[in-house]
């Protein structure tokens, strides 16, 4: 009896959230400062200590993801991410998995367009073993035939399932259209053809060239001191090659405007929408972030939720967010609505984005947005896993080690004029919509 229904879907989280001080309340003291720990080999990690529970969470990220996979081998990073913890060094798959599971050590890898990411979680008692297993996974993965075939078949099965998953299809269709000719158009998880083509030599080549020290960032949170961590960093990551060999991926801008439809016989159409976003280091970034919060980032408080869900009951979930991808910052969103109301929902998204672009914005909305964005940050600092991931994102996006302390100031500094200017920039262009389902009334909107 386990089905749970939440009133709203939790949105895919992008790191940007808010900051450490509680601006609205002024009660939050900054947490312990983030420390940089550097091993003798030069491997560095950012650490936030949390001694209250006897375990540690490690997050790490190797720059280079699906977008860097060789032409025709789409899904290489993703398949490799499923195999790094399937046997390494002296341990075959079964021995490696047993060492993890018997000791409650959680090791996982994942892939997105830009990076291979991973996490390690271990109780203090098993810390040495856990880091040793991570070292082996990164530096001596075996890619034995049995696990390679098994994980390949699992990815194949997943791709088959996703073939008729409207959420997946809608996102895929959006990226395929927006980035035609660019690596971002390709599927991070590959296709049955490309996954079938990936051989053990490709995987070995991947591990030898893509996992290195110069494209690695590490975040650690939990019950560990810098003195304990430093030698573990050396032992675990010190043996990686100094430099990765990453193919060049050029920056891109997504195609703008239009509606593309993939027909599927389902009662509800799933819509992905978006256009170019804003660079993470653009001076208007925080103002744009606030503008998006007001439009579609604020859950029940957002204009899109208000117009589409609260007033009209057209959807259960509608949202938008800034997606800080490396080669093409994006503004993306989604809505799922019954087939005969898709046209209306699309018009409402366009109308609300246009209102933002035109500067229709009240002072109170800005105040409310800033209070939420600054006040809600400590909520994210309550779990070691999430803190470790945040420390990784801060490094990957070059936000500075004092970001947690400074972040609130950036939001506080945003004025109404800034927000209007940023909204005018962000929401100026036409929006590209991809629809999967059986929509009616969209005929005149379709892009060939």
């Amino acid at each position, binding site marked *: *009896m*386990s*089905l*749970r*229904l*939440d*009133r709203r879907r939790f949105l895919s989280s992008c790191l940007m959230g*808010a900051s450490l001080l*509680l601006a609205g*309340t002024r*009660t*939050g003291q900054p*947490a312990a400062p983030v420390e940089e720990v550097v091993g003798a080999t030069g491997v560095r990690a950012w650490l936030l200590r949390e001694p*209250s529970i*006897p*375990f540690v*969470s490690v997050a790490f990220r190797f720059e280079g993801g699906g977008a860097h996979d060789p032409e025709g081998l789409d899904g290489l990073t993703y398949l490799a991410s499923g195999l790094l913890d399937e046997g390494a060094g002296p341990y075959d798959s079964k021995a490696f*998995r*047993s060492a993890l*599971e*018997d*000791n409650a050590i959680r090791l996982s890898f994942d892939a997105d367009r830009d990076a291979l990411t991973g996490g390690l979680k271990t*109780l203090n008692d098993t810390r040495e073993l856990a880091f040793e297993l991570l070292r082996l996974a990164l530096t001596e993965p075996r890619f034995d035939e*049995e696990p390679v*075939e*098994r994980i390949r*078949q*699992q990815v*194949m*099965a*997943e791709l088959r399932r996703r073939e008729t*998953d409207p959420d997946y299809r809608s996102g895929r269709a959006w990226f395929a259209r927006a980035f035609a000719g660019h690596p971002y158009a390709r599927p991070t998880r590959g296709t049955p053809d490309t996954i079938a083509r990936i051989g053990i030599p490709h995987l070995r080549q991947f591990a030898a060239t893509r996992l290195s020290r110069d494209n690695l960032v590490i975040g650690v949170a939990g019950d560990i001191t810098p003195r304990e961590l430093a030698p573990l960093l050396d032992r675990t990551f010190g043996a990686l090659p100094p430099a990765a060999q990453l193919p060049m991926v050029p920056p891109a801008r997504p195609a703008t405007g239009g509606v593309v439809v993939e027909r599927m*016989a*389902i*009662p*509800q159409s*799933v819509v992905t929408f978006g256009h170019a976003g804003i660079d993470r280091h653009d001076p208007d970034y925080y103002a744009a972030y606030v503008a998006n919060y007001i439009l579609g980032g604020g*859950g*029940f*408080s957002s204009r899109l939720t208000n117009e589409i869900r*609260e*007033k*009209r*009951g*057209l*959807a*259960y*979930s509608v949202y938008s967010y800034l997606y800080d991808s490396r080669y093409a910052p994006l503004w993306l969103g989604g809505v*799922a*609505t*019954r087939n005969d109301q898709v046209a209306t929902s699309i018009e409402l998204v366009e109308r609300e984005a246009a209102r933002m672009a035109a500067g229709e914005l009240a002072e109170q909305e800005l105040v409310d947005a800033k*209070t*939420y964005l600054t*006040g809600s*940050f*400590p*909520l994210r*600092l*309550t779990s*070691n896993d999430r803190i470790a991931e945040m420390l990784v994102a801060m490094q990957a996006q070059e936000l500075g080690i004092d970001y947690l302390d400074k972040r609130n100031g950036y939001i506080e500094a945003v004025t109404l004029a800034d927000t209007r200017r940023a909204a005018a920039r962000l929401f100026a262009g036409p929006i590209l919509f991809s629809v999967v389902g059986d929509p009616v009334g969209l005929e005149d909107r379709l892009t060939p």
Partner: protein
Amino acid sequence: MVASTLLLAAPAEGAAGLFHPTSFTLDNGMQVVVVENHRAPVVAHWVWYRVGTADSPPGKSGLPHYLEHLMFKGTEKIPPGEFSKIVARHGGNDNAMTSYDFTAYFQMIAKDRLGMVMEMEADRMVNLRLTEQDARTERDVILEERRMRVDNEPAAVLGEQVAAVQYLNHPYRLPVIGWFHEIESYTREDAYAFYRDWYAPNNAILVVVGDVTADEVRELAEKTYGRNPPRPVPERRRLAEPPQRAERLVEVRDARVRQPSVVVSYLAPSYVSEGREHAYALEVLSELLGSGTTSRLYRALVVDRGIAAGASTFYRGASLDPTTFRIDASPRPGVELAEVEKALDEEIAKLLSEGVSEEEVERVKRRMLAEAVYARDSLSGVARIFGVALTTGQTVEDVEAWPERIRAVTREQVEAAARAVLVRERAVRGRLLPVADEVRR
């Protein structure tokens, strides 16, 4: 949709008690649980009602979930649609959830706003106000939610059909969200009547986890929830399930299915229903049989025989009435589902005839106890553990005793639980298949 981590929760090392809760009851009968956690100036504030989809009125399946949505629509003090916005304006997140045995509301917020959200939550416990317009619009929202969660997804349709077939009588046969045509029939009056019946402090549990002391919570709770007078609430009377005497088979064939799968779902005791002596052993069994890549089924079907893409089990003891022990498997591309089913049946037969080893029981118990430490890492996770337990017939002491009880499970008990539950006549077998044409292809 399946919260498999939920019950992995409780002490690992040392003596009993990983969470060390403080528990007390207000004069009006509202139970309170506080777990202190001072790592950040934040609290998770949850209110749980002992009512869920299994308490839906006849013909109104999912009504508790509808009411859950409507609880955000306002009171005399809170204008329509403002509840969540007020929480957000104070830097907080809020949401709610409904299951078979409970309805829960929560906020995550700075600790100095705890009194405010308690005031708001206490207010909507008794002062809900609904407009006809809001009630109608929210019904449409729920229909969209249903399309998204169920009707757009063949695997969810299968899950719904399996539950409907597993229970002939008991309301666990209903979808948590409700049947489409019954959602369409909801009215504002339905919601009000249900609210008046079930929402009262003496049918609610307050769980606060975070940077606050039990004394502070007690004081705030008395000033807020304490003002709501107790009222008689109905008994939770569900129709009892007759003994299952025949295996039941459900096939969902859908053109959208590219990747077939099978689920075998056995009627099983919960922590509190008849047969409860098997509950902890079933948790160990589930872990041993189908949790992770070193589990029996994964090893046998996915690795050794190489015919399945995945194989896993699911069991949770926290349920007011008899629950299910479930096995899921899906074939590798190119392998017939029947072949996977045959292998699965052989593994179950082998388990029943040959039993399990002392070593594997000890291994998974050790892991379960170690993993429980991680449960402390989430404020809301801890709140959920207590809320789920207390709305499904368990006590605070039961939650704290979880490690001892897992530790005490023996090999013989695991085998006895397997023999008691993994019985073909008590199973529903559900298959997700492509339409016939595509099978031939």
